[in-house]
């Protein structure tokens, strides 16, 4: 990894380019080469294509076994869970995130300064599980964006079959160039999509840009652990672990929760809060692994493509990453001032 002299930390997150680069894991942003932000030696276009193809290929299989929520479940600390509890846990994840961000419901509207969501954007919407859930919960209108045309089409079809096509709609678009005018949404939702985004600064910039005054921004994402005072970077074995995960899941780079907080602080947002929910998601990957080894799982994988199989093979590394406290399942929220 190229080390550069001290520079303004913001520029680290602002630069991105098409150079071939070593895998970059953001750590102490001041001393790392911003040009490596894209990571994996690929241009941004190749990354986007990889992400789109990965999800085009694997979404159907995921949905077949796990349903329409493509995110971690939220479990009680130390609980043992059966396979049927996971869907409830995934719904609980949404509710816990809303609760953490103090998003008011209709009953609470007079006691809260935040807006009740009427217009929601789901950034990295998958097949629209969160979008449809949030639209139903708040009676709100929701726009979802995804890089995957297959996902957008499936999301629309599910909305139609659930009688929600007047409330939710999906576009193929990039989180780094959201196709919306400024200040459109009361709730800006990013559930496990930030990992795919190469330029975290631009990602956060877009989330803040499309948020209306008084709105709430919620990011649930995979981060790496915080670095100690004396540390410039993660340990080599940690980087190696995350590299392999990056390769399989088309993740350009990782940062820490503190990095996200720092980015948000550079915008005029208030009430920035973050939490480490790693212990609440512990049962998830073991369950996914288990589901891959069922008859249904194995036959689906064999029928799927190389990208999906590679993704499945890397699951034990996610488990290892969590167990060894390299990966942190993180929630970050803030409010855009009125």
């Amino acid at each position, binding site marked *: 990894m190229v080390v550069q002299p001290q520079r303004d930390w913001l520029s680290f997150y602002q630069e991105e380019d098409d150079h071939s680069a070593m895998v970059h894991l953001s750590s102490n942003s001041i001393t790392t080469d911003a040009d490596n932000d894209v990571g994996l030696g690929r241009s941004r276009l190749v990354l986007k294509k990889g992400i789109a193809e990965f999800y085009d290929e694997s979404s159907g299989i995921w949905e077949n076994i796990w349903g329409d929520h493509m995110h971690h479940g939220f479990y009680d600390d130390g609980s043992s869970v059966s396979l049927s509890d996971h869907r409830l846990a995934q719904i609980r994840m949404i509710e816990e995130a809303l609760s953490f961000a103090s998003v008011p419901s209709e009953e609470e509207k007079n006691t809260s300064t935040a807006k009740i969501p009427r217009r929601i954007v789901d950034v990295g919407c998958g097949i629209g599980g969160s979008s449809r859930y949030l639209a139903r919960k708040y009676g709100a209108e929701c*726009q979802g964006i995804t890089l995957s045309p297959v996902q957008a089409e499936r999301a*629309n079809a599910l909305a139609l079959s659930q009688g929600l096509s007047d409330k939710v709609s999906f*576009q*193929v678009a*990039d989180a780094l*160039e959201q196709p919306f*005018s400024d200040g459109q949404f009361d709730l800006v939702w990013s559930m496990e999509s930030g990992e795919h985004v190469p330029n975290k600064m631009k990602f956060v910039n877009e989330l803040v840009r499309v948020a209306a005054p008084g709105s709430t921004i919620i990011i649930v994402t995979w981060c790496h652990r915080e670095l100690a005072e004396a540390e410039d970077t993660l340990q080599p074995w940690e980087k190696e672990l995350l590299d392999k995960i990056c390769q399989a899941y088309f993740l350009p780079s990782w940062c820490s929760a503190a990095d996200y907080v720092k980015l948000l602080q550079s915008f005029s947002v208030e009430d920035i809060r973050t939490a480490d929910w790693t212990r609440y998601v512990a049962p998830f990957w073991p369950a996914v692994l288990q589901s891959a080894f069922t008859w249904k799982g194995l036959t689906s994988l064999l029928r799927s493509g190389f990208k999906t199989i590679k993704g499945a093979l890397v699951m034990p590394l996610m488990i290892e990453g969590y167990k060894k406290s390299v990966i942190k399942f993180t929630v970050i929220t803030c409010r855009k001032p009125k």
Partner: protein
Amino acid sequence: MRLLTHNMLSCNVKGVTNGFPLIIQADKVLEKPAELNHDFLRNMFYKVDWKALVDAAKSMGYSELPESAEASMLESLDFLNRFHHALMELHLEEGALICPETGRKFPVDKGIPNMLLHEDEV
């Protein structure tokens, strides 16, 4: 894609300052009935760019919206019906959204707009 969505979309190609509203090339338009929701329409009325909606509806073949509108018109069921129809029941299935400044076309396929930018537009 409904006009509710269209009213929020803009062209974010680098350097474009006037990317809204996108001009509609309506190759295939479908009308899909939807239940009218008074509260929803009232909320949306204040958020919608009215001129953009009127022009977009015309390009989809619907010219029954008044050229300008004010909140008091929400009390008229006739107005609500027209507003509802334009906003929620007209669907662009095939066609394109065109940037008013650059002419860049964003294709709409099976009702899904593809707003991805090319490398040189970012």
